[in-house]
């Protein structure tokens, strides 16, 4: 049993009035964060369920859409987030050991890695904007735009071309009209791409805000071995956001990457 969270004879300054002991407070707070993460699982889960149904319905279009986003950047982002989970776990450990310097350092490290993730995401979004792959016709140059996109990537056209090319490599011939039909259906893939990564990025931004607040409190010396619950809770949240990405990466980027996939 960890001795770091038991009460002393006087009330710890961070003990809230409704709790009888620091141990009860820590237990309740952690459990509360887990229940909150439960709600997050269900919220993202709704998106995942809808995604799965459409992937089955429009498999070819999903393959085409998936091949048109950059797997290298996705791979890099996955490593970045995993590293940030590592630094976050180290931050919690530092708080538990009462080491304020490393705590601050690891929090800053987590934030830097989070910023890198968001930066890469921004670059990916920009690429999609540039290639006229943003679904709907409200943002960007429109999904069906032929003109106005970069010369080498005329919107849907390049998706249709890729579909035909992959088919040729597999020894199958796909007529242009059919390829264009599939290309148009990729709008649904891109809708889910932006919705899922967008909701994830939104949670990352909130996470960055949380980290900032934790950083300020850590520098102020609020935490020690007796009380570091907010760091723990921040860690749980951050790891959860990492886990969502761990699922997003294969589901969005790795649909049928092998050569010859139609």
């Amino acid at each position: 049993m960890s001795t770091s969270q038991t009460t002393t004879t006087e009330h710890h300054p961070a003990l809230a009035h409704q709790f009888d002991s620091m141990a009860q407070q820590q237990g309740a707070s952690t459990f509360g964060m887990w229940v909150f993460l439960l709600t997050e699982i269900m919220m993202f889960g709704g998106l995942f369920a809808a995604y799965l149904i459409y992937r089955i319905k429009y498999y070819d279009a999903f393959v085409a859409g998936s091949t048109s986003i950059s797997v290298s950047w996705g791979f890099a982002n996955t490593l970045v987030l995993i590293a940030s989970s590592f630094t976050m776990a180290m931050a919690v450990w530092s708080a538990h050991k009462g080491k304020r310097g490393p705590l601050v350092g690891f929090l800053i490290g987590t934030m830097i890695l989070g910023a890198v993730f968001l930066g890469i995401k921004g670059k990916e979004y920009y690429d999609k904007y540039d290639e006229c792959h943003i679904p709907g016709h409200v943002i960007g140059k429109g999904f069906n735009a032929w003109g106005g996109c970069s010369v080498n990537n005329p919107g849907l056209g390049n998706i249709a071309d890729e579909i035909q090319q992959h088919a040729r490599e597999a020894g199958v011939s796909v007529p242009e009209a059919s390829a264009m039909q599939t290309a148009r259906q990729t709008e649904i893939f891109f809708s889910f791409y932006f919705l899922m990564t967008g909701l994830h990025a939104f949670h990352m931004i909130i996470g960055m805000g949380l980290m900032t607040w934790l950083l300020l409190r850590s520098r102020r010396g609020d935490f020690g071995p007796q009380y570091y619950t907010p760091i723990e809770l921040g860690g749980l949240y951050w790891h959860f956001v990492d886990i969502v990405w761990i699922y997003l990466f294969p589901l969005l980027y790795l649909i049928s990457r092998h050569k010859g996939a139609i």
Partner: protein
Amino acid sequence: MSTATTTITPVMPAKHYLNDNYGIRSWLLTKDHKRIALLYLGSITFFFFMGGLFAALIRLELLTPAGDLFTSDTYNKLFSMHGINMVFFFLVPSIPATLGNFVLPIMLGAKDLAFPKINLLSWYIYIGAAFFSLAVMVSGGVDTGWTFYTPLSSGFLRTHVALMAVGIIFAGFSSIFTGLNFIVTVHRMRAPGLTWGRLPLFVWSNYATSLIMVLATPVLAITLILLAMERTFHIGVFDPRYGGDPVLFQHMFWFYSHPAVYIMILPGMGVISELITCFSRKRVFGYSFVAFSSIAIAVFGFLVWAHHMFVAGISQYSAMVFSLLSMAVAIPSAVKVFNWTATMYKGTVSLETPMLYALGFIGLFTIGGLTGVMLAALGMDVHLHDTYFVIAHFHYVMVGGMVSAYLGGLHFWWPKMTGRMYPEAPAKLAAIITFIGFNLTFFPQFILGYLGMPRRYHAYPEEFQVLNVLSSAGASVLAVAFVLPAIYFLWSLKYGQIAGDNPWKATGLEWQTSSPPPTHNFHEVPVVTAPPYNYGSDQEVTVVH
């Protein structure tokens, strides 16, 4: 016999949670669960009457067969606003946020909920969402029905769907926070000696409700977010024009909205358990069965949602599975009804107002529940879907059931919350008028539905008029019945008889503290040694200080 108190005239305690602090800031920045409960009480009452106003307009239109009072578009807005107000801004928060917030921590022997600031936040989110939605309603509202089916809602209609969706999403967050608070409090803050097997059934019901709130509401949130995104950015998620699937919307919507009806009824069932046992002076028959039936309803309730979609285009095999599961979910509810009845058998039943509401609940909920089983049968549903039969069914469980339970609970715990008794005679009268008005309003609707009158229509064939007039007449009686408590409850705040700690001689930790309770609920932490509902034993609940 019981060690009942000798007849001393009850006095109001000198200091309690209401007079501990004065001023608007002490209310708007309170962390006291009891004050937050009262904040909620005021708010949801307002939205109940809002929803009632729309209902009155609906029933007014339906007095005549022709659609002569409102255009069909306006009528569509009326029933949509009625549903949205009643479901999201009244029924879902009603008992948990008012009675639950007030009584649950005291029943557990705790000083407050686990996260008082989150409790206050949940009220602010509710108020923000509710008034935002009110603004949307005033500026035109939506005409999609409270169910927001696509493709009507995803691009076909020009009304404020996205904005309304935002309001409902935030109301959902409010309910998630309440549920989260309850779950953590029940797990982590029970008084010494208060094992799960000694918990009042009201706690079990609210706990089960909280489980549903936490697991189901996020799916509604994401569904409405997707709908709002689709409307705003014209992406294809549910709209067939862009390759979307409208049935998927229904799957995701009902994944929340069916468990939501259990969010709405379970706390009511918890209240009824408390009322029946107190006013029969007998412990609940089959306590464990009633407790576990709440959990069973919560779990099974997640497995039946597609019974709202039998004619929407789902596969036959899927429909059969959901039909079977929907019959199964009726079983735990039936267990409760049997156990309540068995509790009353050979008990000393007294007919105070809360008991009148409880008895009304048992009858009306049973009718509502059984008609639900009828609707769960595939063949019947093909005929009855989208008719007034469905409307009658859910109003029997929601109004005849839930609102009765809510009023019963409000009367039961009013003395605890305010220190004063409501006047018994007007209250009994209101209860009886409620029962009469309710049945007059909604029983004809069963017949109308069976005869084929569709729901959400503002004009109907001549031959349905008599039943519709009966229904509208009943609605006006029901309106009187709902206004009466508003009046006499307010009256009782100044002129009501002082209640004392335990006017009902009930068991339960909340009756062992003063009425109204002190801010920290108890003067000393109680230790529980007796089983729940210790009525009729040699002594009342032993509370060791």
